[in-house]
């Protein structure tokens, strides 16, 4: 593998990884604070992307507005899910909470397939034009947007978690939910806020990655699996870990696919098994495992 190919594969892997990171950050944020592993993260994004598709192609709404609306739609979905589904079963086992998100994911898939049919559709990229050359590296414009969006999202999440009162509240809930309530933190509204932010990330991520694939009800499935791999690698309880884990998975996956195409798909299993066996706390996780 020549150095040029290596650089190109790495950079392209970074852009794929940025999407895994976006999905993964949303999952970790919700998991950390509300202790729910959201299996509907990908399909929430998928459904919103369908709505965005019809807004762009049929209603001719400008792209930037659609992007904002998609993020807002994700936030609304998150609010509704927390308020009307999660809140009433919070006291039950975590298994039931996982099942709720699985049901939600199935619901979105069914709705998308039922309302919009399953044939793949081509989603127009956010920015079109010739790829940009940086020395030996050739990078599509959409890829640059994805990278920038991931960096910006990470920055915003960092500011939210470490520079706002609500963020501090969310972090304290993730440490000890009971103690947080005793100290007067309004846990229900923080849960709603966290679900809104997490699901908004789902909408953003799906909209950014869809031009590389085609829009169909199952397109987020594999991406979500990769995002899970990323958060295992990153340590499950760290948003930073999910971001870095996503980027690493993206790059290594791209290199492996080039060098050893045969194990392209099994590669994530190898990663998960090694990580879980050798260092279950991941790269950036705290050693102590959380309640489950």
């Amino acid at each position, binding site marked *: 593998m020549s150095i040029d190919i290596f650089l190109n594969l790495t950079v392209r892997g970074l852009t794929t990884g940025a999407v895994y990171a976006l999905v993964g950050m949303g999952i970790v944020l919700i998991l950390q604070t509300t202790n729910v592993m959201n299996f509907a993260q990908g399909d929430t994004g998928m459904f919103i992307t369908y709505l965005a598709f019809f807004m762009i192609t049929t209603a001719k709404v400008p792209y930037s507005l659609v992007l904002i609306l998609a993020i807002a739609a994700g936030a609304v979905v998150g609010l509704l899910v927390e308020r009307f589904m999660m809140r009433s*079963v919070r006291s039950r086992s975590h298994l039931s909470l996982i099942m709720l998100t699985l049901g939600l994911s199935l619901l979105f898939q*069914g709705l998308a397939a*039922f309302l919009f049919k399953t044939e793949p559709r081509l989603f127009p990229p956010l920015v079109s034009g010739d790829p940009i050359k940086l020395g030996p590296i050739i990078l599509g414009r959409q890829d640059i947007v994805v990278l920038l969006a991931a960096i910006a999202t990470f920055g915003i999440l960092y500011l939210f978690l470490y520079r706002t009162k609500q963020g501090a509240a969310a972090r304290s809930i993730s440490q000890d939910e009971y103690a947080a309530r005793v100290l007067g933190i309004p846990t229900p509204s923080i849960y709603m806020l966290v679900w809104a932010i997490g699901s908004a990330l789902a909408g953003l991520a799906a909209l950014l990655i869809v031009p590389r694939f085609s829009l169909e009800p199952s397109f987020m499935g594999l991406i979500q699996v990769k995002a*899970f791999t990323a958060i295992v690698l990153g340590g499950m309880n760290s948003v930073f870990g999910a971001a870095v884990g996503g980027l690493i998975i993206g790059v290594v996956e791209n290199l492996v696919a080039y060098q050893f195409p045969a194990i392209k798909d099994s590669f994530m299993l190898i990663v998960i098994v090694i990580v*879980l066996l050798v260092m279950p706390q991941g790269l950036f996780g705290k050693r102590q495992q959380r309640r489950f």
Partner: protein
Amino acid sequence: MTSSSTRRLAVNGAIAALVLVLPLVFRTKPSIIGYLNIAMLYAIATQGLNLLMGFGGLVSLGHAAFMAIGGYTAAVLVMTCHVNMFLAIVAGVAGAGLFGLVIGFPSLRLSGFYLAIATMAMGSSVADVIKRLPRITGGDYGLINIPSLRLGGWELAGEASKYYFFVAILVVVFLVVRNFLNSRSGRAVRAVRDSEMTASAMGVNVAAYKLVTFVFAACIAGLSGALYAFTISYLHPMNFGLTFSIELLSMSIIGGLGTIIGPILGALFWVMLPVIIGSRMEFLSTVIFGLSIIGSVMFLPKGLSELVTRIQTRLRL
């Protein structure tokens, strides 16, 4: 008291009679019996998952992989090694159990989300490995022309004969699972689910019982997979991916986790609903499945079997 137990006996007898009579009722429509056969195979696999999740408290998102291993082992043994079909099915069950042992040994150190993700990875990679072995498994084309079910010299050709055979297998599997759960080991398994710490303080070997449950569930799934192979006569790795694992999980949730009868109800619901709705509104059933999962978690924690119990109490059966 006695009248209630006689009434219960009468109802159970009526259900048993209905089950036995169904193939005669639908003699002109063998496809319906075919669907019921599939539902029974799913119910067997789901019973394994139910044992694992409902009674063992262990999450698995890769249960379809055990079905795939059972199915492929049995089918390949019969087709390329010309093994007796009964032995091949036994080998399929053993293969799935062995794989469960190999997978379960390291992954049962994990719990909760970690176990869910580890089994998810395992499940999707088994399908991938099967795809990468085209000389044995047919790879991406799938394994076609698997011989039909045959016991001794007697081929179960029609749907009705398979139906009776599967009913028998289903009853046996369910009885075995029920007796296991009512045994000393079963109590230990449930104790581990409710509180690992209490169970281990009482002298229960937590790790061993988790492993036993996992292997047991894998064997049941392997049995279901082996029978599936000889019923459908076609296996494709894509049919045993993450999607199917989640479908099995959904069946056990809708039917009712932690109930013996739940898997049957869940599998029947899952298989029959699309048939009832019809192919033109195919994906409406997915919507209904999603809603039923949400509904059963929120309002009926024991799923359809809770509904059955409520009707039973209402009618004082």
